[in-house]
């Protein structure tokens, strides 16, 4: 069975590592690639065939150049990417950011987890929207 591909846009190496680490043993989802920011993400997507587009996109909110919300808005305004579920996560969530992300079409908004259980919960929530 083909695993569902996920792309992570995250500028922090530790957080990239953590995602890879906790997603590695997931039976269905697979981290296809990790990029450092929204610009790089779009570049990767532009060079991907339609049939190989990811099953979900995870965006860190605080990234250089194009932040999470900014990237989310771009994706949701594009015919090609609008249908892909997007999760935004951040260390500093607040009500305004959550509202803005949901209004822009995010499927999920999450606080960055502080332990293993947090990651597992977040990943299982993500699996539900794919």
């Amino acid at each position: 069975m083909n695993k569902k591909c996920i792309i992570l846009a995250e500028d922090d190496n530790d957080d990239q590592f953590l995602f890879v680490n906790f997603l590695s043993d997931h039976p269905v989802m697979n981290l296809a690639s990790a990029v450092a920011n929204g610009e790089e993400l779009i570049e990767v997507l532009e060079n991907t065939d339609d049939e190989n587009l990811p099953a979900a996109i995870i965006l860190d909110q605080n990234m250089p150049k194009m932040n999470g919300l900014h990237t989310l808005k771009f994706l949701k305004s594009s015919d090609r990417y609008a249908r892909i579920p997007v999760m935004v996560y951040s260390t500093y969530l607040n009500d305004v950011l959550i509202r803005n992300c949901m209004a822009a079409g995010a499927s999920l908004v999450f606080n960055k987890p502080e332990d293993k259980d947090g990651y597992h919960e977040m990943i299982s929530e993500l699996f539900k929207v794919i």
Partner: protein
Amino acid sequence: MNAKQDNISALQEQLEHLRIKLDEANETIDAIRTGQVDALIVDDGSGHQIFTLTSADQGYRALIETMGEGAVTMSRTGLVLYCNSTFAEMLGMSLSSVIGLSFESFVAGESKTYYRELFKKCWEEDCKGEVELSGNHVRIPVQLSFTPLELPEGVSLSLIITDLSKQKKLLVELENKNRQLAELNEELETSNRDLLQFASVASHDLQEPLRKIQIFSNLVKDKDFSNLSEASRVYMEKIIRSSVRMKMLIIDLLNYSKLSDNESIPQKVDLNEIIEQVLTDLELVITEKDARIYRETLPAVAANHAQMRQVFQNLLFNALKFSSPSITPVISITAVRVKEKAFDSAPDADGAFVLISLKDNGIGFNEKYANNIFTLFERLNTKDEYEGTGIGLAITKKIIEKYNGLITARSREGVGSNFMFLLPVSPQLYE
């Protein structure tokens, strides 16, 4: 020669005559001044004449002479016919040198135009205006109050001159003080804003590395705990516990700084509902400590729901936390409507404020620390014994004060504490 002699003696005679007239006039003026006679100054077409009335009210005349304001009677052409000594003193001149001169000659240059307008208008009706007078090396800001006097004998003008120097000086001082105050306020606001911004930014940015410490130490614990030495396991646990505590501190600090951020409009808050919710939240601790909680029906207050919840959460949790281990914890919440925002205010069933007391029989504290406990990061107990960030009561106080309330605490060590706070009763308007 003879003709010359005659001339001289004629002049001497005239001089003597004038001297006598002058003495008479001075006597009359003295009499007027001392209140022995009253006087009217009358323009009969050929010049001004002074008519004296010996029957006049002496008290009135004496009053004019002794009052603190300048009094002047002026002719139709603006000459000073009479003035009291206060006016002469204002100018630093002698009485005799003032009488007979044009009043305008005492008006400072820049005030002359305005004075002329006043002088023109004042014959029709009473009028007032502020001008600057210029006397003997002095300049005095004054208010002039004109009253035209229409007497059967003719028209003259009564003028009261009020010295405004002191008022002006006070006004300038007041303005200076106000300006200083405004500057200080602005500085304070800026530094407050900076501080809050700092707190907010610092706690935001602290969260990122802290989260890494938490997650990686948890990873070590999950994956390699069994491989660690006995001592390292203890160290690892300490790292994890400290990071949990730091997380708590950061969140509390963020909440504290957020309180100053936005103005929130007070709403009607049902405190009974709030206490119900908080007791549900604290159910576990209450059961664990076998605590008894008594409460009266509380009135609705003008505040914010979530923040009131935080107030009761903090106070009730503290009462439970600092309960005495040897006896059953008893917490009672009572309320009384009072007239004013003061802890000693008289009870009043329709009062604008409610005084709420949250009393416990816990370990208490020395009352000399009663003010300290509401200060940020102030702790009276070691954190090993009692967990906490030292921010809870600071938040509580800030919330209460944000809604125009007051909070204080009474306590005795080993007996218990009583936290009392005042809040405006809804729909009392927020000031």
